[in-house]
Structures are given as C-alpha cells and as structure tokens.
C-alpha cells in the first residue's frame, strides 16, 4: 500500500527534473535500439543463411565416384570408381538411416523449344526423392516427378522457374508440350522460387528435370554423374558415410578407408560449421549491443549520483518528517527503473519500426540477401528486457544507497 503513495511522490518529483531525465532516457533508448537492431540483424542473417543452405538441399550428402589411392585385394591404385543405379538400391536397402536417395544424370547443351522460342540449357535425370532432398518444390498447380513417371519412362519434364520464364514467359506451363532436342515432353510442374547459395552445374532455377529412366532410355547412359542421399538425423551422417564406404568398398573392391575412392560433398557438415559460426557472430553482436547499453546505464548511474547530491537537503527534510531510509532508497530505485523502462520501450518501438520497414524492402540477389532481413524474435525481446531490468536496478541501487545514508542533521546544514 505504502508503495503507491511513494509512487505518487516519485512522480511529482520526476516532473521537476524533466530535462535531465529525458536526456538519460534518450541514452537508454539508444542503447536499447542498438542491442535490438544488432541482435535482429544477427537473427536475420541466421535465418537467411538457413534458407540459402536449404536452397541446395536438406541434410544431403552428394557422392561422386573417385579414384582409388591404395592397392587392395590385388587390385592396383588409380582405378576409377563409377556409380550406377544399382548402387542407389544397394545403399537404400543396407543403410536404414538414409531417408532419401537418388542418382543424377547430367546432360548439357540441350536445345529447348516452345512455340517460337529456343534456348540451350541443361537437363538432369533423377528419381522422386529429389523433390524433398534437393528442394525442387513445385508451384501450385504442378507436381514433381513421381514413381509412375519413373516406371513408365514417361516424357515429362519439371522446369526450373527461371528457365520457364525464359522459354515460355508468363504462360501457364503445366500441361504444355515443349521440345527437348526434338523430343516432345509434357510440362508437369515449375519449381518454386528459392534462394540458393551452393550449387553444382548452375542454379536449379535454370535447369530442367526428367525421370532418370527416361533419360537412360533416350540416351543410353550407364554411369551416374552423382549420387545424392539424405540423412534424416544429422548426427548420423558420419556413421552413414562410413557404411557407404564399407558397402561400396565391398562391391567395387576398394579399401573402405581409402578416402579418395569416393568424393564426398557433405552439406550437413557444412551447415553445422556455418551454424557454429553464426552463433559466434550472434554472440559477438549481442555483446556489442550489451556494451552500448551498459555505457548508457553508466550515464544513468552518473545522473543519479548527481541527483542524490543535489537533493541532499530535500532528503534530509524528508527524513526529519519521518521518512525511513528504505523510503528514500525506494524512491531512487524507482526513478532508475522508470528511466530504464521508458527508455527501453522507446528504443524498442523505434527499432521495431526499423526492422519492420527493412523487412518489407525486397533484397534481390546480392549481399543484402543475407544482411537485409533483420528479424525480431521472442528470445531477443526477453534478453533485452532482462538486461534493461538489471541495468535499471544496478544504476539505481548504488546511488539509492548513498541517498539513504544521508544524515539529516548534516544535510540540513548543507547549503
């Protein structure tokens, strides 16, 4: 109950020091703004990077045939290891941790024709798991390659969104017939636009995908250009890789420890490393923001000490009228918390406006792609609010103790 009257008192006193208090509030607001913006940029960077990495695929490992570097079972080194569709089935059967697997065949410089438009691009031949493994998601109204397409070697094609624009403009692509090297293919889907940072052979948006069986039937291919598998639980990846070397080593008769026999592009590990780096960056940014806020709070503490000094006589009079030390202390702590609260809310609102405005600006393809999408999140809010609370309390507590120690007799003599 008593807190409320003290609060009324505190409010009255605050009104008399408007200018000084507003200056201090600005300092806290600025510090809050810094910390929120820095953390939001870090969060945005993390999210965008995550999206960009998914542009290549989710938890995938890309396998290429290599060259043996060790003599094994009487066979010389320097043998080429080449992968086939059989290996796809083999690995799928023998390694339960694999959640998706497909081989991929490439063909470059293929001629695409639609009505009067012609262009040259590449085609790859894959299996249905490619859709979710390599994030080849179809736009509404279309679909990716399915098992029946594969079984019947249908002449169906899934177009990259960029390729579709260049070949067919704004036309509705699904159901249309295009010619690839003179052979008619039906378009079954167009890829959803995505951000892609890593790639091989060019962005996915620029290529066409057909069933691998169809490609083999048309061109008589024997060896895969690469094999892609997905590991559902990322931490299983090293184990799976070992098993892959064991199983393929047994089939092709190379030493399972011969790391050159197969070339492994592990995007999972890549993602982990990037993730760790990002955590480091976020911590760093957060630290800078916190330091800025700390400096602002030093300003608050400074002002409060000055305030105590100036109001010494007032404190003495209040003590003479019956105020206890804790009343005096509470008043100053309240003042500091008030400053921290208002400053924090102000800084928070301005930074939210900035973040929202920036989020709305399209970022294109350049470096802004990663840096231009600051994202606010609940943890950021909680972190900032806690820091502000601590700052307010600390900045107020020590001056408040000093105020409470004022000796009324001395202060009433104080001119």
């Amino acid at each position: 109950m008593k807190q409320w009257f003290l609060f009324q008192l505190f409010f009255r006193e605050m009104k008399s020091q408007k200018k000084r208090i507003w200056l201090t509030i600005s300092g806290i607001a600025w510090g809050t703004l810094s910390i929120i913006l820095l953390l939001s940029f870090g969060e945005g960077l993390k999210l965008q990077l995550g999206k960009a990495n998914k542009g290549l695929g989710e938890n995938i490992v890309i396998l290429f045939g290599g060259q043996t570097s060790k003599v094994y079972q009487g066979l010389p080194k320097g043998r080429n290891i080449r992968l086939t569709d059989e290996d796809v089935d083999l690995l799928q059967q023998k390694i339960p941790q694999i959640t998706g697997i497909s081989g991929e065949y490439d063909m470059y410089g293929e001629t695409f024709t639609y009505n009067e438009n012609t262009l040259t691009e590449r085609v790859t031949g894959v299996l249905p798991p490619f859709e979710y493994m390599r994030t080849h998601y179809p736009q509404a109204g279309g679909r990716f390659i399915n098992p029946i397409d594969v079984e019947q070697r249908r002449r169906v094609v899934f177009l990259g969104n960029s390729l579709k624009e260049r070949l067919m403009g704004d036309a509705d692509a699904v159901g249309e017939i295009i010619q690839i090297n003179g052979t008619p293919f039906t378009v079954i889907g167009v890829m959803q636009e995505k951000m892609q940072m890593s790639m091989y052979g060019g962005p996915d948006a620029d290529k066409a995908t057909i069933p691998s069986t169809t490609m083999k039937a048309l061109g008589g291919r024997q060896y895969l250009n690469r094999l892609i598998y997905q590991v559902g639980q990322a931490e299983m990846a090293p184990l799976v890789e070992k098993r892959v070397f064991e199983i393929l080593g047994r089939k092709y008769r190379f030493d399972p420890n011969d790391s050159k026999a197969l070339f492994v592009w592990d995007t999972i590990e890549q993602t982990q490393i990037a993730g760790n780096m990002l955590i480091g960056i976020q911590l760093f940014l957060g630290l800078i923001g916190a330091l800025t806020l700390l400096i602002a709070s030093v300003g608050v503490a400074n002002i409060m000490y000055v305030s105590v000094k100036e109001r010494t006589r007032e404190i003495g009079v209040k003590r003479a009228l019956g105020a206890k030390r804790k009343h005096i202390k509470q008043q100053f702590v309240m003042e500091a918390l008030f400053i921290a609260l208002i400053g924090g809310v102000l800084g928070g609102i301005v930074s939210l406006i900035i973040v929202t405005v920036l989020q709305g600006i399209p970022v294109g393809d350049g470096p802004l792609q990663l840096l231009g999408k600051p994202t606010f999140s609940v943890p950021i809010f909680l972190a900032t609010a806690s820091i502000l609370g601590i700052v307010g309390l600390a900045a107020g507590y020590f001056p408040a103790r000093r105020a409470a120690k004022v000796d009324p007799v001395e202060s009433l003599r104080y001119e």
Partner: protein
Amino acid sequence: MIDMEGITRVYDTGKIQVEALRGIDLTIQEGEFIAIMGPSGSGKSTLMHLIGCLDTPTAGRYTLDGEKVETLTDNQLAEIRNRKVGFVFQSFNLMPYATAYENVELPLIFAGIPGAGRKQRVTSLLARVGLADRMDHKPGELSGGQQQRVAIARSLVNQPRIILADEPTGNLDSASGEEIMSLFMELWQQGNTIIMITHDPNISDWCNKIVHLKDGLIENGEMH
C-alpha cells in the same frame, strides 16, 4: 513530556573531537512554550536535533512522551519523528516542485495514510493557517510568510506531541514575523508544546520559559 538527563553529544571527526553538548539536564512539561537562546556554537541546534530525535546523544538519557529514545533504532526514530514531532525550519524547507497541499501531505504519506484520509486533514489545516485559497500554489508562488505558514501546517499534520521551531522568523520581514509568532501563540493557547530557537530579544513576551545555552551547557532557566 520531555525528560533529559546528562545529555552529551560529541562529534568525532577523526582529527578532533567537538563537544557540542556537555551534559544537559532538561525537563519540559506538556503545554509549555520554551525558548532556547544562546550565542553561535553554544549547541542550540544540536539540542534541538536531539530533542526532535534527528540525532542520538553520545551519552545520557532522554525520555520523550514516556518513551526512552536513546536506545531506539533508526527506523523507530523515523517513526517518532513522523508521529510525535513537528519541525519548522528557518528556511522553510518546502519541496519546491510540490503545491502547498502536497507539501503538507508529505508526513501523512510517510505514515502510510491513504489519499482519502489525507484530504480532510490537509485542507482543514491549511484553512487553519489561513491558506485555504492557496492550496494549489507552489512555494515559488507564495510569500515568505505564506511559505512558513505552509511549513507550520505541515508540522501539525500528524498531530505531534511537540513542535520544534528553529528561528522560524529568521528569514522573514518584521510584519510577517509578527504574523508567524501570533500563529505560534494561538497554537500554544490551544495546548501545544512548543520549543523554539530564537535570537529575538522580545521572545520573553511570547514564551513562558527561556533556556540559555553557552558552550554546550545550560546557563540558567528563567521562569515567567
């Protein structure tokens, strides 16, 4: 009301020791109007602070309104100041950012009295000192005499047992000074116990007992 025995106050500043009071025996009955006089440095203010429980004696015993004060804690002393003592200072010591009403209200806030209960008391006291029409004025908008009247109302708001006034007319012109002294007279006639530090040579016209201090000791006490 007040019973002091062998009160001593020594200030220890590390290098030197100052004996402000060197053994005061003082008894004040309820309803008396006591003037404390003496040259600078005689210990008047120190004695006043001790009577008002703003300070504790280095030695001696002090009973105020039946309570032994010399052994009380800081918080207990604060409560006594709040309930039993009313202070009036030479330089008024009002909060400059608050209105007359809010200034008088202050001791009630520290006593924990809710707003509704405060209003009645504050307004009637301000009326009693003749400032009913100036309740919303800040000290900057009041004359010296009016400010002191606000201070007197403030000192009365918790119905104290004693009123302590430290040269209340020191910062006022003679006309305002007279007004203030008549106000004190009224309060005395209404039964309040008043202890006043003063240099006024005519003080004997107003009070009923003078205590002369010199070098930390009482010289004599005159009765009227």
